[in-house]
C-alpha cells in the first residue's frame, strides 16, 4: 500500500498550480468587481473612497447605460431566436435528408466560428461599405439607389450587428445539433412515417423533444455568451458608435474604464453579472421539461 503522505504530496503538487492561477486571475478579479463597485476610484486619483451604493444610483439615471442595456437585450432576444431557429431547421434537414455534399456544407458552415471577431468585423466592413460595398452593390442590381444605404448608420447599425452575429454563430450550433440529432434512433422515424406523420410533425414531435436537454443547455450558454459576443462585435465593428447607437452593456463598461471611472465601470459589471445570472436562471426554469428517454 502506498503511504498517505506520498499521496498527499502528489495531490498538492498536481492541484496547487491550477488553484493559484485560478485564484489570482479569476477569483480575485471577480471579487474585486464587486468590491470596487462600492468605491469611487479614478485613473488619476490613487486613493479610493467608499461611496456605498452611489455608483448604482448613478446608473439608474444614466440614459447611456439604459440604452446600452436595451441594445443588449435586443441582441439577446433577436440573435438567439434567429440563430436557434435556423440552426435547428438546417440541422434537422441535414441529418434527416440524404443531401449530396453534406460534408461540404458542414465544413463551410463551421468556418465563421474559427475566425477572429476582428477578422469577421473586417469582412463585414467590406460588406457594409456604403460606396462599393458588397451588399449595396448587390441591392443596386435590383433597385436603383439614390443614396447609398448606410449600414453602419444610426438607424441600421443594430441590424447590421445582428446579421454579423447570426452569421458567425449559426454554423457552430447547426453542426452541434446535427451531432445530437444523429443519436435519435431511426426506428422512431420509420414507425412515425408508417403512422402517416409528415416531416414537420416528425421534426416537432420526435426530433425536438428528444434532443430537448441539449437544446436547453446550449440555450442557456448561448444567452450568456451573447452578452459577451455582443461586446466583441461592437468593440471591433463600431466601437459603440455612431453616437452610442450600438453601445452594449459590456462595451459601455469598458468605455467607462477607458474614461478612468473604475468604480463606476465595475458597478456596471456587477449589474451585468447579476443580470446574466438571473436570465440563465429564468431560461432554465422556463425550458424545464420532463426529459424523454429513447
Amino acid at each position: 500500500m502506498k503511504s498517505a503522505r506520498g499521496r498527499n504530496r502528489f495531490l498538492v503538487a498536481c492541484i496547487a498550480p491550477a488553484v493559484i492561477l485560478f485564484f489570482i486571475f479569476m477569483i480575485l478579479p471577480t471579487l474585486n468587481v464587486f468590491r470596487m463597485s462600492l468605491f469611487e476610484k479614478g485613473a488619476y486619483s490613487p486613493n479610493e473612497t467608499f461611496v456605498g451604493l452611489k455608483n448604482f444610483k448613478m446608473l439608474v439615471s444614466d440614459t447611456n447605460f439604459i440604452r446600452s442595456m436595451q441594445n443588449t437585450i435586443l441582441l439577446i432576444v433577436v440573435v438567439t431566436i434567429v440563430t436557434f431557429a435556423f440552426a435547428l431547421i438546417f440541422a434537422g434537414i441535414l441529418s434527416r435528408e440524404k443531401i449530396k455534399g453534406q460534408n461540404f456544407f458542414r465544413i463551410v458552415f463551421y468556418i465563421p466560428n474559427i475566425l477572429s471577431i476582428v477578422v469577421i468585423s473586417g469582412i463585414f466592413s467590406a460588406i457594409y461599405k456604403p460606396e462599393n460595398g458588397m451588399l449595396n452593390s448587390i441591392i443596386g442590381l435590383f433597385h436603383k439607389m439614390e443614396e447609398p444605404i448606410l449600414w453602419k448608420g444610426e438607424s441600421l447599425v443594430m441590424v447590421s450587428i445582428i446579421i454579423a452575429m447570426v452569421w458567425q454563430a449559426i454554423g457552430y450550433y447547426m453542426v452541434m445539433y446535427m451531432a445530437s440529432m444523429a443519436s435519435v434512433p431511426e426506428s422512431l422515424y420509420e414507425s412515425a412515417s408508417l403512422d402517416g406523420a409528415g416531416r414537420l410533425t416528425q421534426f416537432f414531435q420526435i426530433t425536438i423533444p428528444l434532443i430537448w436537454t441539449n437544446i436547453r443547455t446550449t440555450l442557456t450558454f448561448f444567452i450568456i455568451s451573447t452578452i459577451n459576443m455582443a461586446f466583441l462585435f461592437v468593440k471591433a465593428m463600431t466601437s459603440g458608435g455612431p453616437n452610442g447607437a450600438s453601445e452594449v452593456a459590456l462595451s459601455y463598461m469598458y468605455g467607462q474604464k477607458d474614461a478612468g471611472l473604475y468604480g463606476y465601470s465595475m458597478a456596471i459589471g456587477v449589474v451585468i453579472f447579476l443580470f446574466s445570472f438571473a436570465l440563465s436562471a429564468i431560461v432554465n426554469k422556463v425550458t424545464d421539461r420532463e426529459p424523454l428517454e429513447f
Partner: protein
Amino acid sequence: MKEKKHTNSTERLYKFFIYLVLALLAISIIVPVVWVFLASVKQNKEFYGNPWTLPESFYWQNFVDAWNTAKMGEYMLNSVFVTALALVILLVVALPAAYALSRFKFRSSKFLNAAFMAGLFINVNYIVVPIFLMLRDGDTWLKKVMGEGFLLNNLVVLAIVYAATALPFTIYLLSGYFATLAHDYEEAAYIDGASYSTTMWKIIFPMAKPSIITVILFNFLSFWNEYIISMTLMSSAKGPKTLPVGLLNLMQAQQSAAQYGIMYAGLVIVMVPTLILYICVQSKLTQGMTVGGLKG
C-alpha cells in the same frame, strides 16, 4: 398511380428548395471570405470601382507593406509565441489538476471541483478591468521596489492570463474524460511498483491523447483570435502587440488613410493560420463539438 406522381414532384420541389437554401447559406459564407482574399492582391485604385471585378494583377506589395510597414510580421511572431506559451502552461497546469480532481477523493476535492465549475460562468470580459488594474498596481509597486515595472505590456504575462482564464473549461473537459477511465489501470501500475506521478504521466496521459488534442484545438483558436485581454494589457503604443490587435489598429488607421489593400492583406495574414489548421483537423473539430458544446 396518379397520386404517387404528385408526391414525387412535390418531393422534388422540396429537395430543390432545400438545396437552394443550403447553397445560399454556403455562398453567404464563402463569397465574403474569398472576396477578402481577392481584395488583398488588388491595388488601391481598384477599390473605387465595382467591388465584384477580379484583381487586375497579383499586387503582392500589399502583403510586403502589411508585413513590414504595418508590422504584421512582428505581431505574427508575438501571437505565435503567446499562443504556444499559453498552451504549454495550460496543459502543464490543467492536466495534473484535472487528473487529481477527477480520480482522487480527498478532503477538499468536492469544494475544488465546485469552484472550478463555478469558474465556467466567469467570463473574462467581466474581469478584464480588475486584472488590468491589479497588474498596473503591481507595476507601480515594482517601480518603487526595483525601479521598473514589467507586468503590463509583457507577452509572458499575457500568456499566463490566457492560460489561467482557460483553466475552468479545460479542467472540466479533461475531468470528464478521466472520470470515464476504469481504476484498474492505476491499480495495475501501482502493483508493478509505479509511483503516482509515473502512473499519471506514463499510463493515464497517453490514453487521454484525443481529449488533449481537442483541448489544444479549442484553446489554440481562442488564444489566437482573442483581442480584448490583449488590447487591455498591451495598451502601450510602443509595446508588443498580438495579431488581432494589430489588425484592429490597421483597420482603424485605414479609415483615414484609405489603404484598403494593406488592410485586406492584414486580414488574410490573421485568417490563414486558422484556416490551414481547420482544413487539417476539421473532422476532429466538428467531432469535438459535443464536448465543446458548452463553450459558445
